Structure formats: C-alpha cells, structure tokens
C-alpha cells in the first residue's frame, strides 16, 4: 500500500513546490532562512538573488530536499512533505530533479564518463552499450567527449561544470537547479551554459538558478526571488523588480547598470 502510494506520488510531474513558512539554520547559529513562504510552479524559471551568505544555496538545497527545514515545510504537489518524507520518497524525488553544484560535486575517484554513467548504472538495469548510447550524444552535444577518461582533478573548473551539467541532463529531470552556474567561468563557457539553460527553458523544464548577473535574470526569468537578511524580500516578475523601491534592490539594479 505504501509502495503504491509512493508510485502514485512520483508518477506525477513536479507540478508545484510550496514553501510554507520554512526556516533553516546550520547548527545553533542564527537562522539562515526564516519564514519563507512561496510557490514555484512547473515550467517556471526563477533566478535567486541575495548577498553572499544570504541563504541562496540553502534555499536551493531545501527545494531539492538535500536539507530539511527546521521549522515550516516544503510541500511537493500538495502531497509530499520534504520534512517528513521517507528516504525512499526523497530518493525518488531527487531522481525527478537535478542539482548542479557550485563546485560541480563530481565524484573525484571516478572519471568523467563513470560520473555520467553512475545514475544509469545504479538506478536502471541498462546494459553498458545502452548506457553509452545515452551518454555519448550528451557528451557530444556539450563538446566534452575529450574529457571522458579524465578524473575531475585533471579538469578545469569550467570543464567540471560542463560534466556536472551533462550528469544532470542524463537524468532528464523535470527540474534543474543551478547553484551559481557562471561562477569563475570565462565568457565562452558562460555563453555555452546560458544556451543550455535557454534550451531547457524552451523544453518547459522548471529552472531555479542562483546568480549574481541581473542582466541574465532579466533576460530569462519568469520570476526573480530576492533574499535579504534571511527573509523573502521580493518574488515576482522581472518587470516588477525594476519598479521596486527597496534600497537593497535599488542597489542590485544600480550594480547592473555599472
């Protein structure tokens, strides 16, 4: 019965992610995020802004279910509570979304190809030939074939980031969560990743992106989310952001003009 319930929950798409007064703190420190209430709908592109250490990554990790709120909750499709979810439910949820880590999060003792194959080897019964048939086109699309035998330690930050994105694409998730996708990259790779994100938007994937580039946010976002002092300061369309009078947002916009 429980198994059946799990299947019912996860056969559905991730239509809605609802934060209900979610709070989070690391250890006994002061709260990183407090009373966060908002709803993300399927297919939306949301760009997250805030000061360094302001809780952007924490917000993304809460959305992915990598951490649980200490208070409040994050509810998927009005059914699954990420705070109360069992390990099996969380693992199923994870396989419907992909998190691209700021530092790539590749497994350092595996080469790039094995990193990409990991999900398929673990979660499916596919044979090596079938796995290769899935991985190679993605590697070709992202022009990373030459790195397939390299260990993460032998790759540049940008190359690791590309492999991390490829790993996410192989899962073919409904939602991509990018934690600072352009951090420390040159113009060439920034453009490359922007194009990938635009392609994913065209395919109506839900996208959550933390970033410091307001230009990009204004270009792609359906909604901009601004966190300020651990609280939700703004969550609306980019057009409305431009009309906001809050000093922090004005500073953000000023910075954009610079």
């Amino acid at each position, binding site marked *: 019965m429980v198994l059946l319930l799990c299947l019912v929950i996860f056969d559905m798409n991730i239509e809605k992610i609802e934060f209900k007064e979610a709070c989070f703190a690391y250890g006994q420190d002061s709260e990183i995020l407090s009373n966060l209430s908002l709803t993300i709908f399927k297919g939306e592109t949301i760009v997250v802004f805030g000061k360094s250490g302001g809780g952007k990554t924490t917000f993304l990790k809460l959305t992915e279910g*990598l951490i649980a709120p200490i208070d409040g909750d994050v509810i998927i499709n009005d059914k699954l509570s990420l705070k109360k979810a069992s390990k099996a439910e*969380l693992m199923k949820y994870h396989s419907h979304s992909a998190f691209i880590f700021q530092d*790539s999060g590749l*497994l350092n003792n595996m080469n790039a190809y094995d990193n990409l194959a990991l*999900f398929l080897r*673990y979660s499916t019964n596919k044979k090596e030939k079938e796995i290769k048939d899935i991985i190679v086109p993605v590697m070709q699309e992202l022009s990373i074939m030459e790195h397939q035998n390299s260990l993460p330690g032998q790759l540049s930050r940008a190359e690791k980031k590309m492999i991390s994105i490829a790993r996410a694409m192989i899962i073919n998730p409904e939602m991509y969560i990018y934690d600072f996708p352009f951090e420390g990259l040159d113009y060439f790779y920034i453009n490359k990743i922007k194009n990938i994100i635009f392609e994913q938007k065209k395919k109506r994937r839900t996208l959550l992106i933390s970033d410091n580039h307001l230009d990009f946010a204004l270009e792609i976002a359906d909604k901009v989310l601004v966190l300020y002092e651990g609280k939700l300061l703004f969550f609306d369309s980019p057009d409305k952001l431009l009309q906001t009078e809050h000093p922090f947002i004005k500073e953000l916009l000023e910075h954009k003009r610079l």
Partner: protein
Amino acid sequence: MIRSIGRSVINFFSYIGGVTSLFAFSIKEIFNRQKEGRRLINQIITKQIFFTGYLALNSIGIIALSLGLITIIQIFGIAPKIGAEDMIGKILVATIIREIGPLLTAIILIGRSGTAIATEIGNMMVSDEFDALESIGIDPLRFIVYPRLIGMIISLTVLILYFDVMALLGGFLAARLIGVSIPFSTYSNTLFSAMSFIDIVVVLFKSFTMGAAIAVIAVMHGFKVGRSPTMVPVAGTRSVVNSLLAVFLVDGIITVFSYI
C-alpha cells in the same frame, strides 16, 4: 564545571548513538532485498576487499611470520624447562589464534584502511560528493557506507585467518631453519588437538565486531568533517585513536566473556 561534564556526556552518547545507527543501518542493508544499485554496490565491496584485504597481504604476512617465529622459538625454548610441553598447543591457540592474530590484524587495518576511509569520506564531504549522490537519487549511506563496512568485515576475517596460518606455519618453518627440531606432524597434532569449536567462534566474532567497529568509526569521523578541509587530517587521527580504543575494548570484553 558541571556544564562541561554534562556536555562531554552528551557528546559521548551522541557519538555512540551515531556509531550504533550507522552499524544498524548497514546490518539492515545486508537483508535489504532492494535490487536497485545492487550490482554497483557489489562492485564497490569487491574493490574495498581488494584495497583493504588483498593489498594488506604483504605487510600482514611479514608481521605474522616474524611474530610467529618469535613466539614459537620462545615457547619451545621455555615450555620444556618448566615441564609444560603438554600445554604448548593450548598456549599457541590462546596467544596467536585467539588474541594476537585478531588484535594485531585489526591494528594494521586501522592504520592502513581506517584512516583511508575517514579521510576519503571527509574529502567527499568537503567537495559536496554526498549531496551530489543524493541529488541524483543515490542513497550515500547505501552506496558509500555499507560497502565499506562489509568490505572491512570480510577483509578482516580473511586477514585474521591468513595471519594465524602465516604465524603458525611460517613461524614453525622459520624455527626449523634456525634449529628448533620438532616434526611437523607432532606440531600440527598439538595445535589441532588444542583447538576447540569455541576458539573458532571467538575469532569469528572478534573479526566481525572489530571490522564493524573500525569501519563505522572511520565513517563517523569522515562525516564529522563537514565542509572544512582542515578537519580531514583531524578525522584521520581521531578515527585511529577511537578505533584503537574500540578494538581493545571489544577484544577484552569478548575474551572475558569467552572464559565465563
């Protein structure tokens, strides 16, 4: 003062709680019928046995041989002088098979593999690898912790057996080379007649508990690294110290209970 004692007590029990829950998870996982990832997990267990067990054969072989040589020469030298020739088999079984074999093998594995596991997991914590695994629907405990625990238990069991054989057989051969004259049949009869079923049970129980303790403590300290790279070497050293304490404690308790 009282607050400090209270905090130490809480830390101690939370540590024991963490170690116990990791161990309980791994034991539960042995009986888990979930097929997902099983093939990959079995491959990791095989790799773990290769690194922990196979690659330790040389060092354990040399140590066992030297120790066997010393012990056998001493026993065969002293026992006849005190009229304890009949006890030689019992002494060898009690010292080498039941005590020194498991203890020394465990100590070698703490140095070789316990630190390796603690620092490996520590580095994985620092570089988001655990979160990354979870984010693609792979349970890190099942994928990382369980194979290391099973690999460690299997490796330790086999290595203890190997240690005992090398110490008794190799030691005997080495003793023959330096002039201690006793026929092999007499030597082996002495040993086999002194060995009982309970000796085998005790050794197997020690290898299981010590192997589990080494792996779980190493994993626990790896987890404690969190996001700080400077904590990685600390995890290695703390894992060694606590594993040594655990192994001596476990050895003492099992030995005492086996004689009650």
